[in-house]
């Protein structure tokens, strides 16, 4: 635990991003007006993109901003504006008991993940490079595995950048990529069919 606090104290950028992300997420789950929730979600998304850059996933950070903030969130806002919920249509808020039970369940979920992270004996056999708070590490993240060091120049010169992830997508992970594009086509068709307005028959 102490190593965690020292790590956080030495990393103010991450602390700011994490606080903005948590504040945004709390805004999403507590506000009654869905527009405020969407704005909190936007703050959380932008801080996630900054964390991705910090983890040298620059391609993912750009795609995160484009897809999540630029498409999904805009779609949310369009639908919120389109529905134009009045006060009486916003719905009642759940009773205090239901909220307390939900908070306890969320805390139990967090406790489960924290237990798995902090426990002395891991639940499964640790694989090389698995998370360990007591690992010695220079700087932020433990040293990269051997496979990355074996190729100092070439594709990994730009690790996590557009060229590197692009090479990975179109060579090794080409099949999941094609499946995902099929999934998106199906989703588009489904959304168009579901949201279509049934016009009255013509003259």
């Amino acid at each position, binding site marked *: 635990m102490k190593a965690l606090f020292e790590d956080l104290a030495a990393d103010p950028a991450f602390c700011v991003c994490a606080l903005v992300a*948590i504040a945004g997420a709390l805004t*999403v*789950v507590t506000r009654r007006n869905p527009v405020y929730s969407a704005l909190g979600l936007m703050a959380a998304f932008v801080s996630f993109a900054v964390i991705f850059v910090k983890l040298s996933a620059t391609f993912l950070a750009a795609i995160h901003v484009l897809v999540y903030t630029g498409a999904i969130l805009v779609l*949310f806002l369009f*639908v919120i504006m389109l529905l134009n919920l009045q006060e009486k249509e916003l719905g009642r808020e759940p009773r205090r008991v239901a909220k307390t039970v939900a908070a306890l369940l969320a805390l139990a979920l967090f406790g489960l993940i924290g237990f798995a992270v902090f426990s002395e004996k891991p639940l499964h056999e640790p694989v090389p490079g698995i998370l360990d708070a007591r690992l010695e590490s220079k700087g932020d993240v*433990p040293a990269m595995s051997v496979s990355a060091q074996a190729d100092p120049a070439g594709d990994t010169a730009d690790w996590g950048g557009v060229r590197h992830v692009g090479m990975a997508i179109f060579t090794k992970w080409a099949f999941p990529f094609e499946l*995902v594009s099929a999934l998106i086509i199906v989703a588009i068709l489904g959304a168009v069919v*579901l949201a279509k307005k049934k016009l009255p028959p013509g003259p």
Partner: protein
Amino acid sequence: MLKYVLLSAVMFAIGAYGALARRNLLIILMSIEVMLNGANIALVAFARQHGAVEVPGHVFVLMVMAVAAAEVGIGLALIIALFRSRRTVDTTELTEPQG
């Protein structure tokens, strides 16, 4: 490294609370997005630590983003269709199926 996993766990727990404790369908969808983003952070942190040349962590994050986009698209289309026929997005009033 630990701080990224803890942040991911906190995000996931907050999203889970939002999906359980709110009645407005739009906010439930947004909480699910928060949960998915928590998982994305954990994936990218572990990918950075593992350092593989073909980055399966990043590619999986792209899959998660695509699935989240598809799910949001269809979820919002469903909400629009539902709102057109029943004029409410409150889950407690949407309990009985109709026609």
